[in-house]
């Protein structure tokens, strides 16, 4: 099996064959999910803890469902309301949890790199469910799976990522993943929402939607991350919608069969026209949610296999 990771901390450390391994398995789980018996037993006997230091509904529910469908014992900890408020450090929280012998730790944290730090201190598999403005690997994987199912391939596509790139961990993970799979990536957005040094990432940059969308196969919209902004980056939401919101007119610049994606939750009327979001011929937003569960099942399955192999090796040595 070509999946060699102990943790899933980001796309940066994944090789293309590992990405394909995850997606292939996720495809099978997507079929399982559509059947009457949704249960697998890949995580049977294992304990999965979801630690969310940032509020989340969708991602947390997706991880919880994925774990439960594969037979894990799943526990949710809403850390935002918890010990951190009492002054406990991240490391202490990690050590406390570690003492409960979890097998899979799913972590979201507002600081970039916090999940890497945590992974050094625990002896279980850690999955990054989003750290600061750094990475959100399972989102990129589910986007990749959705694209592959809709387009029949995951290479040599023209893919536009639009909007608030600077504050988006989804954009970073997607740029890394789609770049590794050899696609042509365009970033479209106001220059205030472009990260510094982005011209060195091997992507094309546009600040005009129609020019950027011309001939695209895939249009990925990003949410305007108002909560991560520390000041005014755009003059107003209505000007933003006028220039960068996806509507039928701007979308017409893309290929006729271009698909529209959004990681959710959407700000309708800010970055995307509600009619486009609901257009079943163009929008794959609901499928993204569906693939989210499948990709997370696959990722946890693969990490659990490696975890069991590591433990067996250790047992054999002892």
């Amino acid at each position, binding site marked *: 099996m070509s999946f060699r990771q102990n943790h899933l901390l980001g796309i*940066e450390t994944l090789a293309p064959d590992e990405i394909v391994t995850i997606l292939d398995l996720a495809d099978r789980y997507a079929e399982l999910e559509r059947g009457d018996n949704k249960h697998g037993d890949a995580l049977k006997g294992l304990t999965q803890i979801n630690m969310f230091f940032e509020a989340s509904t969708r991602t947390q529910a997706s991880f919880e469902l994925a774990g439960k469908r594969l037979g894990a014992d799943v526990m949710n900890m809403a850390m935002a309301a918890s010990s951190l408020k009492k002054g406990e*450090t*991240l*490391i202490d929280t990690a050590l406390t949890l570690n003492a409960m012998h979890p097998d899979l730790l799913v972590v979201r*944290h507002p*600081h*970039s*790199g*916090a999940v*890497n*730090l945590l992974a050094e201190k625990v002896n279980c598999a850690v999955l990054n469910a989003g*750290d*600061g*403005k*750094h*990475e959100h690997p399972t989102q990129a994987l589910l986007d990749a799976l959705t694209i592959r199912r809709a387009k029949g391939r995951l290479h040599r596509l023209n893919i536009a990522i639009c909007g608030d790139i*600077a504050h988006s*961990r989804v954009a*970073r993970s997607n740029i890394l993943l789609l770049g590794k799979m050899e696609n042509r990536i365009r970033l479209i957005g106001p220059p205030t929402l472009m*990260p*510094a*040094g*982005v011209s*060195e*990432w091997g992507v094309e940059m546009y600040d005009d939607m129609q020019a950027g969308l011309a001939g695209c196969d895939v249009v990925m919209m990003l949410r305007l991350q108002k909560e991560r902004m*520390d000041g005014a980056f755009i003059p107003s939401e209505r000007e933003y919608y006028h220039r960068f919101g996806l509507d039928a007119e701007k979308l017409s610049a893309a290929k006729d069969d271009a698909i529209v994606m959004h990681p959710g939750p959407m700000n309708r009327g800010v970055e995307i026209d509600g009619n486009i979001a609901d257009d079943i011929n163009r929008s794959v937003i609901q499928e993204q949610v569906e693939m989210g569960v499948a990709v997370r099942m696959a990722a946890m399955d693969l990490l659990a296999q490696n975890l069991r192999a590591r433990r067996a090796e250790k047992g054999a040595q002892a």
Partner: protein
Amino acid sequence: MNILFKNARLIDPEAGTEDLGWLLVKDRMIAARGAGDTTQNAERVIDCAEACLAPGLVDIGVKIGEPGERHKESFRSAGAAAAAGGVTTIVTRADTTPPIDTPETLEFVRRRAQDASPVRILPMAALTKCREGREMTELGFLLDAGAVAFSDGDLVLRDSKVLSRCMVYARSLGALIVGHPQDPILSEGAAVTSGKFASLKGLPAVSPMAERMGLERDLALVEMTGVAYHADQISTAQSLPALRRAKEAGLNVTAGISIHHLTLNEFDVGDYRTFFKVKPPLRAEEDRVAMVEALREGLIDIICSMHTPQDEESKRLPYEAAASGAVGLETLLPAALRLHHGAGLSLADLFKALSLNPARRFNVPGGSLAEGAVADLILFDPNRPFVLDRFALHSKSKNTPFDGARLQGMVLASFVNGQCIYERNAS
């Protein structure tokens, strides 16, 4: 005790020479020196076996945790670290808790330092009360009590009117002001330098331009007031033209840089390694190279360690939440020798920036091998290689970015006032 050093490579930053010769220490002073061999004798004769004898390092801007954070560094531990690192004079920062902003606190620091440390410790004092940037401290009293310069450290004075008044007042006293050139608003909350690396890692970043903006503001006020001004750390190429203009215009301006910005770059942060989080943040490699060149031509005058002890707790945090700063007293010399071995700087030029220039600029003893100068000396082997183990450091805090690094150059012995304060075991 009289000491005769024989067979030593005498590193003389004033003359710019490094010749083989001898040097005699008598009554705490350098009494005589010469080339080749000598018939002089003394109570103790040290055959240096062609190791280097140089004026001890004068390190500007060292943070010691007293008062307030003795668990991070005390005068005793800092003194031991300095002695082992070849630093014979420390000029301390005022960013303690409480800050050194009254003659009484300054007096406490001087007394504690004298009791606990074998090396000279001379304090800077805060420029404004509580380092809040509103009212100037009692600059006159503090000067009388022994403050060698005035600085609010990395808290940039936002109010230019307050700063200009401080400068006018300081000028009348002949006092030196040390600034931290940085635009305080652009750099707020930043953990790394903006660019490809910062964006990939998703860390809050500051443009190198913020340093130039801070420097230009300070230099304009220096031109207006005529005060003596030292920029504590210049770290980006964008700052250099402004600095050059000011010097060419004859302003009383000098500039320093930390050894970390001369030997490391932003990529060293790697996977969120918080021991590499310093202030200002590490820069691009092009900037580092430009700084080495600026040092070579004398545009940058002083190399310091920016010794900032932090305990494990304040560093074992997510990168943006972790404390800034690195210890440097013991690694200053071996790290600086990378510039000798790697970038071809002569030892004499290196000691100009490490010893002579800071001693002159801050008007403190040391920095000279001339007859009649104080006998603050170090004996070192510039070539001996070793791998740094952070737990072997004398500092209480072990937050060095050079842990596990291969370094070259080792202090064999240190002398302050002609007294041996450190001697490396012959192992």
